[in-house]
């Protein structure tokens, strides 16, 4: 297999460095898989006979419900906003996006409190509308409700993907289908959706991964997913081996999903001409306006406004008892550790994407894909695999467990894919003739990177960094397991209070996370909007 290289001497060095980096990122998973090879199968049989069915059913059911509602909350607003011109459009555009700042477990705890018997909703009804109150007196800790709540926290993944895709699909195709006599609705279902299949599926993939990863919310709502099974074996039964088996099982399921997504991408990625003229938006009729406002307002209200108001209410209530010194301390901890991990991720991701352009090597591609796989693993599994890895070396590497380095290592493993994704689409967007021209004009790889690839991918790098950063400040399971002594993050503190049923006390910490996230997300949105406009002009 001939290696097409344009830069003669350095390619071996580059390939070598890539392989080493990939191995480092993937090594703990390999350790995990290896550790399961020689285990006693009786534990697994026990699991298989008693619990696996329950876990599988709950997991699948939850994934389906969350996916369904995420699609509803994400696709319709994206379509309405992309194709219509109405007052408040831009505000909606930003607001619809913001639930991403609220971690799933915070959303779950908040709503379980809001909806509970002693919570504000039922108390209000009991005081003012007693007949209604009886009707609303239900047990809200159901898997279906959890699915909706998770969808409220995760739909922005789909919203963003669709927003981008719908505006790229462009008026060409819409005009075309209209001239063929198709109504707007039909155009939507028969043309726009299929063309956007890839983006929608990518967004859905992220949603599903988050559902599989979720720990706190699922446990509280009494839903038995695979992840809770892993924890149960690992913690309750001290059965690391069964836990590892379950983790490996989950890993392969996720690899399956991952391959599906790639396959989908390849097969259905229509390389249509991106929108060349400015998108023609419609001014909707009054009836339509009402529908639009309803469709957009609902996710915003439920996914952002109500939870935030509730959290702020708690903070005000607890105001005098807040230890502000602690808040600042935890905020800086969170900020620093996210900053370091995000930076490392972006540097590695950019390096890989750049190399992919200048060196065409199948091995390289395989490794490139491999390092994205670790995203699929729940944080708990990553924590477990790292502990196994470091305990298995003969020299005293266990000391490393409980140090910053390992914590950041775990973050890098978990969120590498998040950083890679936007970079990938940006890097791949530019034609290979850029690199050919650069070689022809005598630019060294470093110069090519600094003068060309770095500037033209600037926005994508910023986007990737921000997205990764926001995800890491929300991260919970890995931090819980691997954090060093006396080192807490905002997420950890929130969880600890919430799980001990001290939700008001947890609110200031949740609020800080959410505020950080909101600011970064708004910033991110502005960058993305600029990108969309530039590619349109």
């Amino acid at each position, binding site marked *: 297999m001939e290696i097409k290289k344009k830069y003669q001497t350095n390619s071996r060095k580059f390939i070598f460095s890539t392989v080493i980096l990939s191995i480092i990122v993937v090594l703990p998973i390999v350790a995990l898989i290896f550790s399961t090879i020689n285990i006693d199968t009786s534990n697994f049989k*026990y699991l298989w006979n*008693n*619990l696996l069915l*329950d876990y599988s059913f709950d997991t699948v059911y939850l994934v389906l419900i969350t996916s369904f509602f995420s699609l509803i909350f994400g696709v319709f607003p994206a379509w309405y906003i992309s194709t219509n011109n109405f007052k408040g459009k831009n505000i909606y555009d930003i607001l619809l996006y913001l639930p991403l700042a609220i971690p799933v477990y915070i959303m779950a705890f908040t709503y*379980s409190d809001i909806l*509970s*018997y*002693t*919570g504000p909703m*039922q*108390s209000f009804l009991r005081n003012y509308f007693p007949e209604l109150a009886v009707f609303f*007196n239900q*047990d809200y*800790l159901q898997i279906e409700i959890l699915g909706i709540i998770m969808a409220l926290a995760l739909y922005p993944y789909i919203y963003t993907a669709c927003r981008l895709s719908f505006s790229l699909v462009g008026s060409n195709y819409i005009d075309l289908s209209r001239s063929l006599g198709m109504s707007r609705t039909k155009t939507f279902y028969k043309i726009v959706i299929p063309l956007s299949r890839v983006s929608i599926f990518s967004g859905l993939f992220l949603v599903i991964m988050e559902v599989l990863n979720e720990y706190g919310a699922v*446990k*509280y*709502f*009494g839903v*038995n997913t695979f992840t*809770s099974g892993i924890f*149960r074996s*690992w*913690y*309750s*039964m*001290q059965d690391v081996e069964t836990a590892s088996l379950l983790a490996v099982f989950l890993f392969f399921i996720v690899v399956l999903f991952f391959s599906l997504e790639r396959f989908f991408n390849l097969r259905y990625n229509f390389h249509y001409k991106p929108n060349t003229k400015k998108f023609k938006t419609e001014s909707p009729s009054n009836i339509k306006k009402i529908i639009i406002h309803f469709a957009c307002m609902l996710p915003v209200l439920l996914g952002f406004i109500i939870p935030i108001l509730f959290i702020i209410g708690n903070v005000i*209530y607890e105001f005098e008892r807040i230890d502000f010194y602690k808040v600042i301390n935890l905020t800086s901890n969170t900020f620093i550790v996210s900053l370091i991990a995000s930076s490392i991720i972006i540097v590695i991701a950019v390096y890989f994407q750049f190399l992919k352009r200048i060196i065409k090597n199948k091995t390289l591609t395989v490794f490139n894909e491999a390092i994205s796989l670790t995203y699929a693993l729940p944080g708990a599994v990553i924590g477990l695999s790292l*502990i196994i890895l*470091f*305990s298995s070396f003969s020299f*005293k590497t*266990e*000391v*490393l*467990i*409980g*140090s*910053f*380095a390992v914590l*950041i290592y775990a973050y890098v493993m978990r969120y590498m894919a998040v950083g890679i994704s936007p970079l990938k689409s940006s890097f791949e967007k530019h034609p290979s003739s850029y690199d050919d021209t650069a070689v022809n004009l005598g630019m060294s790889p470093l110069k090519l990177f600094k003068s060309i690839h770095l500037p033209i991918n600037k926005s994508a790098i910023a986007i990737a960094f921000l997205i990764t950063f926001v995800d890491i400040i929300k991260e919970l399971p890995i931090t*819980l*397991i691997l*954090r*060093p*002594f*006396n080192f*807490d993050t905002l997420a950890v503190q929130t969880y*600890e209070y919430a799980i*001990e*049923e001290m939700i*008001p006390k947890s609110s200031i910490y949740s609020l800080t996370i959410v505020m950080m996230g909101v600011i970064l997300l708004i910033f991110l949105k502005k960058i993305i909007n600029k990108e969309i406009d530039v590619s349109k002009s």
Partner: protein
Amino acid sequence: MKKFIYIFSALLIASCMPNKKNSNEINIYSQRHYNVDEIQYENFEKLTGIKVNVTKANADELIQRMKNEGDNSPADLFITVDVGKLWQGGDMGLFQKFDDKSVFKNIDSQLLDNNSYWVPVTYRSRVIVYSNERVKKEELSTYEDLSNEKWKGRLLVRSSSNAYNQALMSSLVENLGSENTSKWSEGVVANFARDPKGSDRDQVKAIAAGQGDIAIVNSYYIGLLLSSQKEEEIKAGKAVSVFFPNQGENQRGAHINISGLALTKNAPNRDNAIQLIKYLTSTQAQETYVKNSFEYSVNPDVKPDEIVQAWGEFKKDPVDLNSLGTNRNEAIRIFDKTGWK
């Protein structure tokens, strides 16, 4: 560029070092993180000048961590709310024996570890609470009675993955044997008003909401509800009453569990840690616990809070507390087999 790489590498290597040990401090791995604990540590620091560093996490996570850290573990003390975990740590060789008679003389002997690995600091009971409206006290008697059909669709309890339930189940295995306990569990599961979910306090709120009539909860949660800042929670607490099971003449008494601590095997600050143990079992600290967390003191001379006193005195199940650990795996198996989620 090169400079940047050097600095970055140095930082990277530095971050690999686990935290240095300071001479005058203690490092605690603790599952407890109530307000009262912070108050205790603060008071201890003021008294002795010893700084208390706490890493809070789930007991299982902490045990895993100590196991992985091995001899190099920086932890001095391990504190948890479930004796089963304390037994487990001892069984895994994570602790050193602590046998100070001067400390033990202030502690109810029924609560002590006969292996000398752990020291109790508070205890509580896992009781039955019942709806004031819909249940008469006379209907209740024992834990065993909970599998009776008369409670069908009326019983509320949290998930079996919670350590409190696992401890209760372990005590039943110890007292009744596996087979009987298994049958009991089947009956209980058949009586569930709903699938186990939420926390202990959620069960009480569900009674107030009319979704069930009785629940199995830890005693101190009632205290916490009754003293809550939220009006609605107080109301919920008032909607139920506390019942101590198995109090009859020939019956064994109500199930209890302790919060306790253990000295780690290679505690780097052993002497400081022992000082803390002494402090937490002192009368002063015990009174602080009792007033703030509605638990019972391990010192028989220290009276519980008024709210708790109002529930009356009760006979404690004298079963060896370590059995709440040794039977743990069997308990979990019974849970799984009988479908108690």
